[in-house]
């Protein structure tokens, strides 16, 4: 198992997850996440050689649907739920960069 999670690690994952975590909260979260991960480290005791990761419990495979159209959602109903909309579209502040 990797080394204990650090404040920097937590700050990094908070950025990835788009959360602002205040410095005092960072300490607390780091300590809590560290405890949970430490508990999880017990799994290292198990022999996982040759064990496949779990798939669907019932073993379902190849679930596909026919390529058949169904009615689309009503745009007004959809946009009525949007925090901001304009010209039939969802409006957001400047995005700054291209798709990553």
């Amino acid at each position, binding site marked *: 198992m990797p080394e204990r999670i650090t404040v920097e690690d937590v700050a990094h994952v908070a950025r990835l997850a788009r959360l602002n975590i205040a410095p005092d909260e960072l300490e607390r979260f780091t300590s809590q996440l560290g405890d949970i991960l430490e508990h999880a480290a017990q799994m290292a005791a198990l022999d996982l050689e040759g064990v496949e990761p779990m*798939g*669907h419990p019932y073993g379902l*495979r190849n679930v*596909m*649907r026919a*390529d058949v159209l169904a009615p689309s959602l009503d745009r007004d109903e959809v946009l009525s739920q949007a925090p901001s909309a304009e010209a039939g*579209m969802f409006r957001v502040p400047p*995005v700054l*960069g*291209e798709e990553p």
Partner: protein
Amino acid sequence: MSNELPDNGLPNGWKMVIGLEVHTELATQTKLFSSSPNLFGGEPNTHLDPVSLGLPGSLPVLNKVAVELAIRIGLALNCVVQRSVFARKNYFYPDQPKDFQISQYELPINGEGHLDLPDGSTVGITRAHLEEDTGKSTHMGSGGGRIHDADYTLVDYNRAGVPLLEIVSEPDMRTAEQAKVYVSELRAILIAVGASDGKMEEGSMRVDCNVSVRRSDDDPFGTRCEIKNVNSLRSMGRAIDYEARRQIDLLEAGERIRQETRHWNEDEGRTVTLRSKEEATDYRYFPEPDLVELDPDPAWIEQIRAALPMLPRERRLRVVERTGATVAAAALIVERGLDDLVLEAVTIGGDPARLVNHAQQLSDDRATDLSQAAFAALSTMESSGAISATQAKTVLARMVEFGEDPASIASELGYEAMPSDELESMVDGLIAAHADEWAKLVAGEQKVMGFFVGAAMKATGGKADGKAVSAILNQRRG
């Protein structure tokens, strides 16, 4: 690749290495994971369902036709069709409704394959995997649509969830021209198997180019840059050449290449930095728990293989073998879908060379509706001299336009008899070819007249007017 490398146009012996990632939209009725329409255009946000809008509680269900089209492409590219697992690629962006994209990561549906190009070279295919498209952002404000100057952005999710196949090539191409040939060939295959309309301009086929340079073909690969936003074959060629030269300039100035994604600016004819790979996003891929594994039944794969149409390469070879056409001519004929017409017309006795010549010039979409018998007849009329090559073109144009048979068009146009100027030049030809007989005729041996008229009739397949031939001969004799 073949050993004979064509000139890459680069200075000082520099070599370039190109690998391409082609995203093609698949021609399904509905989206990859839901039942709203896969349609280009349309009023914004009218092709939506809870899944393609990424609403809480919605779940993806895989479109069987998208899978079949992916397998068709895979088989056409000689790929291994294999067990695959969908994965989530996590990143935040407004046109990605769930803030993750469902793609295939470790296990793509199509594994390694290859594509043979018309020039005899082969490009390796790394993989071809299924994934969903994003919505579209429109950047509003004084910046004129430029992302960095936008005041705000509007998002339309109609395209979100449209099925894509991402076809990744090996870095096997060495010139921009070769890259263009690869994309054209790939495009021809996508169209042939009915998987895509291959329209680069509408974005249904999008190409990202990975370009690097090195001093020698024996050197390891250089640091590569990925170029996005090439919207046509021509701009792709320009972008690759520009990018290679940019990298060479940097290296020759003693600088290093930074691995990055660059944006092709068509108007300015250059690439600009989009983002550095060094600040690479951590996509946190993991298997999509809302979907089960895809492991197509071998019988289904074989059924798809058996139903595949003949591919462009095979069709070109067939035209070359049976008509003696050049590879380029065959490619054009196949691209226009006229190969069956030409070959059937040849089978029933048409003149192969003349048919190939006409088919190359038939850019009208309706040409595929021509009857093989009429097309063959046209070539025979031409080779028999009943009509001239110029006339044949006119007749053919009318055949395409009105669907009539060539004989009646020729008659309508008064092409039945050979026009006097052509008749005269034909007669002059006979005179030149038979100097001895001509001398006898000039000397007054009248019976030689019959020899010349007979030759003229033979040369025109009986269509020449004997009296007219005699008149010309008498005129020439003085």
